[in-house]
């Protein structure tokens, strides 16, 4: 019974390895997107220009998938009994250090989100960094205080409201004959206010990923004894 999957797995892995041994990567002309970015978008970060401008539909549906996953996590986690909580450490020095570290991480995440169109980084990585800052903050203050914030502020409503902003951007900013958001200025490459809607979209998607990561952490940490 167990030998058949073993045999087929080994065969398929060997086939993949043999095929990959024959792949040749030729140095290619990768300057189409940089040229178009310089002309039509104005972001210094070409990857950001691609996923926030030329391929915005990809990003839109990616954000929708993320949002659906968070709804699924909240729904199925509500069927599991709540158990266990994260307590703050007794040592005030460790608590202070964790608090300091979390503030630094959150600020760095915000910086990564806001300068996503100028340098490596962007909405998704910045949102993930900020959410991990919240994890450290929970370790510093204990889960009761942080979980109260989630419950009182109704974060999932904000998280879904942000989708409306992105949707309306996609719907109203697409004027025939151009790429997305001709209403926003291209600006000079390297300026903070450049890259058309990059700042708006980075901010909204970064906030969404941040809240999504926080909600996933909230649902799991509330039930950490159930695992």
């Amino acid at each position: 019974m167990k030998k058949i999957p073993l045999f087929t797995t080994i065969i398929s892995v060997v086939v993949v390895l043999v095929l990959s041994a024959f792949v040749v990567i030729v140095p290619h002309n990768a300057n189409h997107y940089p040229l178009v970015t310089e002309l039509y978008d104005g972001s210094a970060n070409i990857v950001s220009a691609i996923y926030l401008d030329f391929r915005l539909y990809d990003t839109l549906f990616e954000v929708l998938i993320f949002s659906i996953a968070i709804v699924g996590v909240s729904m199925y986690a509500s069927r599991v009994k709540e158990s266990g909580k994260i307590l703050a450490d007794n040592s005030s020095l460790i608590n202070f250090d964790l608090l300091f570290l979390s503030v630094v991480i959150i600020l760095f995440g915000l910086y990564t989100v806001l300068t996503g169109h100028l340098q490596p980084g962007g909405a998704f990585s910045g949102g993930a960094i900020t959410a991990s800052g919240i994890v450290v903050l929970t370790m510093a203050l204990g889960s009761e205080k942080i979980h109260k914030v989630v419950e009182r502020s109704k974060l999932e409503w904000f998280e879904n409201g942000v989708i409306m902003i992105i949707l309306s951007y996609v719907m109203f900013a697409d004027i025939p004959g151009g790429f997305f958001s001709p209403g926003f200025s291209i600006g000079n490459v390297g300026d903070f206010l450049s890259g058309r809607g990059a700042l708006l979209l980075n901010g909204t998607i970064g906030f969404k990923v941040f809240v999504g990561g926080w909600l996933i952490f909230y649902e799991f940490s509330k039930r950490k004894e159930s695992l």
Partner: protein
Amino acid sequence: MMEPNLFLSMIVFGIGIVIMVLKRDLVIKLIGLGIVETAVTLSFVVVSHNGPLPPILTLPIDRVDPLPQAMIITSIVVGFAVLALSLVFVVYLSIVYHTTDSYKLQKRIKRDEQ
């Protein structure tokens, strides 16, 4: 000429596939899925390598191809979402059937259906 980095990423891919197929524990299967995703990311990075510099417009022209990197951002976020969702399913299953072993789960689900 063979591309050694791509070959290495495919070896990582194979390790993930072997873990996913052969291990019976659902959590370990998910770890294997994570390894496969990492291998795919790695192979895209290898394919996009077209120069030593990152894809920033202000840098000289020896930049990597930006398109695979933009694609892989999608893959990473979707992978994260799928991982979180499947972990919740594993927690729920382990509470209902008291195991994360896939063979035992199959047996217990069959027994419940009868």
